[in-house]
């Protein structure tokens, strides 16, 4: 890589010494007035922002038991202090979850508790000043809401909930984040994060169909807006164009083709991602899940299946039924929604896919558990299915699979560094540093077990790794979609290629 040096990966896992303030100035671009107003937020920082912030904070405390309990319950035991990938990557103490929470908690104490009102110094309560707001803006955008800290907290305090609340407050006083708010506006207007209109989407997918037919000799369809199809596929729009995402989309299409089911993509709801979760806005989140409900109703489908996307799956699995349900108009024989991995694994178990593992023999795989899938959702019927099913699929389509260290996978998985609305170039430094724990774990299996590729089931993870890994001296093609592996191994009826 011209221009800058490769970052040396330290395969020894170390807790950094504190480096106060080192990431203080890492903050994302502020949303322009147009992006703010499109979501109903003030265009820029309002004059009476302190009062409005406290007012909003008070509202949120009344609306969320989690926020109320988490504000009161922390005893500063320090269990979380070495658990955040951004702290491990930067050493900035305000990236320790408890310290990040305290940026909000010290304001809570000052304005909402007896001790903080009368003995602020004693309990670490502070007035809401411009400096505090600046810290909020920087450090609540250095949290990817991955919930790793909450696994280790003896009270289950979830920093994701706290950073969502902080971002919600900032949106309401006119200090929103450009990246998330601009994107949410695009979904409202056009239907996906990219702003890809119906016609362009149809053209893109037709081209892709041609590519698949050229390669395999089989006419695999990727249908758009087909009324009466059985299955609505909702997938992150990155699947339509980005690498390696698109290879995953080809994989879903082949699986659907092999299963002989009728399915469709919707241009109206052509986005699984729901960035409203990142900004903590339930109203916005509902507007986006309502689009999916409407698409399902309009197209008259019987099932909804989600493609590979981490936070989208959390929203779909955990929140969509609450926000846009009940989905009683769909076929009750299937869970609503289903994950594409559940669908594929079901077919594999029934022996309905013709798979040739040797097609993936050029790779030794490992699997990156995406944070929102791991700690905010489930697959299958039993707890932990979200870890077992993707691995079971990989093992069914590849000969060679090795897990990374146990304390870096499963519920202990490290975020890729780009989740939670941080996948933007203006946050490249924190993204790079936040990826280092995962890079360390990956490097270890590369050196010990000859791992060549890492599979993921999240559009953000894939984009982040493709961008970040080269900085660590790992090729961007080393990150693959899980369904790309399925796509490689699957043999369709009448398939003539690719020729080895």
């Amino acid at each position, binding site marked *: 890589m011209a221009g800058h040096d490769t970052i040396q990966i330290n395969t020894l896992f170390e807790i950094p010494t504190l480096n106060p303030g080192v990431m203080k100035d890492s903050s994302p671009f502020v949303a322009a007035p147009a992006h703010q107003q499109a979501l109903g937020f003030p265009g820029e920082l309002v004059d009476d922002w302190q009062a409005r912030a406290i007012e909003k904070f008070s509202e949120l405390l009344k609306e969320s038991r989690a926020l109320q309990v988490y504000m009161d319950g922390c005893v500063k035991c320090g269990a979380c*202090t070495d658990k955040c990938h951004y702290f491990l990557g930067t050493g900035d103490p305000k990236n320790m979850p408890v310290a990040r929470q305290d940026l909000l908690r010290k304001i809570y104490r000052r304005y909402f508790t007896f001790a903080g009102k009368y003995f602020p110094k004693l309990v670490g309560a502070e007035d809401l000043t411009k400096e505090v707001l600046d810290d909020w803006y920087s450090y609540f955008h250095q949290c990817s809401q991955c919930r790793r800290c909450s696994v280790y907290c003896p009270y289950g305090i979830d920093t994701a*909930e706290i950073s969502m609340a902080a971002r919600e407050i900032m949106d309401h006083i006119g200090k929103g984040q450009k990246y998330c708010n601009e994107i949410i506006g695009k979904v409202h207007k056009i239907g996906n994060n990219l702003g890809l209109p119906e016609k362009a989407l149809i053209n893109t997918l037709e081209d892709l169909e041609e590519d698949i037919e050229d390669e395999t000799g089989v006419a695999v369809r990727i249908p758009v807006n087909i009324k009466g199809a059985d299955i609505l596929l909702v997938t992150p729009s990155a699947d339509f164009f980005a690498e390696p995402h698109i290879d995953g989309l080809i994989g879903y299409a082949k699986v659907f083709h092999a299963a002989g089911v009728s399915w469709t993509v919707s241009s109206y709801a052509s986005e699984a991602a729901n960035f409203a979760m990142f900004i903590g806005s339930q109203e916005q989140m509902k507007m986006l899940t309502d689009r999916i409900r409407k698409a399902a109703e309009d197209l008259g489908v019987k099932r909804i299946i989600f493609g590979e996307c981490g936070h989208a799956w959390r929203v779909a699995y955990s929140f969509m039924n609450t926000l846009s349900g009940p989905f009683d108009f769909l076929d009750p024989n299937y869970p609503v929604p289903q994950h594409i991995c559940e669908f594929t694994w079901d077919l594999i178990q029934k022996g309905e896919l013709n798979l040739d593992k040797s097609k993936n023999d050029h790779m030794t795989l490992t699997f990156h558990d995406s944070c929102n899938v791991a700690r905010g959702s489930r697959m299958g019927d039993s707890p932990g299915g979200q870890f077992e099913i993707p691995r079971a699929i990989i093992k069914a389509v590849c000969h060679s699979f090795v897990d990374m260290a146990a304390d870096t996978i499963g519920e202990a998985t490290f975020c890729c560094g780009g989740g939670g609305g941080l996948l933007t170039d203006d946050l490249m430094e924190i993204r790079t540093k936040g990826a280092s724990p995962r890079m360390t774990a990956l490097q270890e299996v590369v050196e010990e077990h000859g791992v060549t590729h890492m599979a993921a089931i999240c559009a953000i993870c894939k984009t982040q790794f493709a961008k970040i890994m080269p900085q660590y001296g790992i090729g961007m093609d080393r990150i693959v979609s899980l369904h790309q592996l399925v796509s490689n191994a699957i043999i369709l009826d009448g398939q003539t290629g690719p020729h080895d």
Partner: protein
Amino acid sequence: MLSTIFAILFYLATTVFIVGLVYRIRLYARTPAPLKIPTTPAPVTRQGVVLRMFKEVALFESLFKANKWTWLFGWVFHAAMLLVVLRHLRYFTEPVWIWVNWIQPFGKYAGFAMLAGLLALWGRRFLVERIRYISGPSDHLVLMLLIGIAASGLMMKYAVHTDIVALKAFTLGLIYFNWQPLPADPLLLVHLSLVLILMFIFPLSKLLHAPGVFFSPGRNQVDNPREKRHLAPWVTALETNRSKAGGEK
């Protein structure tokens, strides 16, 4: 005079403690939890959640995953304190309940374990850089308060005995509103004063973690959002309005 002041303070402290906790617990219970946010993998049944909460509250399962030393010190302190508190029931009951007599031999020594756990927890706040950074004055003061209670109690038990029979008469007098004199023993007065402070600050401080843990949605929710629709009050309100509007058409 002294006895009267302490008697009044104990009534006040008990009132603040109970009213404060009831107020807080009602607040937690009444605040809606609009979304399903259990930290997964999470139990898929109510019974599973009860087991998860039990492991969390009785064994500090998550803390065990996080840091073995913190777990050891924290668990020893809490378990020992529980024994010590239960042992103290003998000063509030006449005749003393049988099971309180059973734990007496263990409770007597649990005070040392409690003190050791507290000292170790306090030591971390000085010795571990990260913990030092996050520790504020109140974090130190709460530990000092508990250490003071444990140390003064142990001294009375093992060094400078107090008139325990008179003390029991005093506590029973408080319960039955038949006030009796409190032994004016300096160590006892220190011990009781610190306990009074603890009762006063309990509902106003981070000690709220004790009731709070039971209300943590990350731990107490069942992982079944697909199977059973979790209702958010604001969404339900929207739906009710919509169906009303639809009905009027």
